[in-house]
């Protein structure tokens, strides 16, 4: 038995009956979890991009008239039907089996351009515009 006042006071135990121990532990457990913000941020970013895409799609031109101009005039140097030798000459040469009798080969310039006319880029630009 402690006769001094501090000793006797100290032997009195403070009441903790009104404290909610389980509630505190539950709340502390929730507070100790670090919130992961990466997934909500990513979802929000994707939602924004979807909205922007939708607005662009709805407000942009839906169709575009493309006028294709075909130049039908022959290029200079391009052989015409009239300038080609008659097929009978070839038949005759084949029958005589004399290659020397064939007319000289006329160099035909390339009709098609070196690069393709339609590319994915050009098609997509037309579709998007």
């Amino acid at each position, binding site marked *: 038995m402690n*006769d001094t*006042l501090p000793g006797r006071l100290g032997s009195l135990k403070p009441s903790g009956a009104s404290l909610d121990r389980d509630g505190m532990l539950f709340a502390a457990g929730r507070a100790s979890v670090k919130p992961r913000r990466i997934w909500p941020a990513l979802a929000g970013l994707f939602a924004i991009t979807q909205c922007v895409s939708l607005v662009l799609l709805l407000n942009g031109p839906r169709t575009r008239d493309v006028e294709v101009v075909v130049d039908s005039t022959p290029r200079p140097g391009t052989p015409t039907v009239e300038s080609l030798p008659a097929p009978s000459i070839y038949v005759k040469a084949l029958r005589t089996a004399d290659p020397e009798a064939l007319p000289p080969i006329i160099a035909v310039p390339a009709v098609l351009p070196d690069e393709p006319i339609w590319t994915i880029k050009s098609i997509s630009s037309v579709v998007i515009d």
Partner: protein
Amino acid sequence: MQLANLFDAHAPALLLYARQWGASGEDLVQDAFVKLAGQRTPPAEVVPWLYRVVRNAAIDAGKLQHRRTRREQIVARSTAWFAEADIEGLDAATAADALQSLPLEAREVIVAHLWGGLTFEQIAALAGTSASTAYRHYQAGLDRLREKLRVP
């Protein structure tokens, strides 16, 4: 379960400490432990840190309760401060009443030292005063309690 052990060991004394400002301190004590659990790096001295958090919250809560009537404060304070009704010939209710009659500075030091186990240096850091001043408040408070309780 370190937090649970800490709660069992210090929550009742922290509650008694919070009540010195007239606050019903259950929520304040619980919030202090929840705040401790949310700390990324635990404080160097956990117990004084808990007392500091409770003290700040109790002061704020005491300001909010300032408009309430004196009677309501007395009723709030009279909820049993101590677990036992009587120990070693000392009536707990009488001791609580005597404690309530002390100035706040003395009550704070006595509660923090006797039931919280804080040193006078820790209490001084808590209250923003010097250790000698804290000790002086402690002795003055004990002298007044001796007179009221008639205990040597």
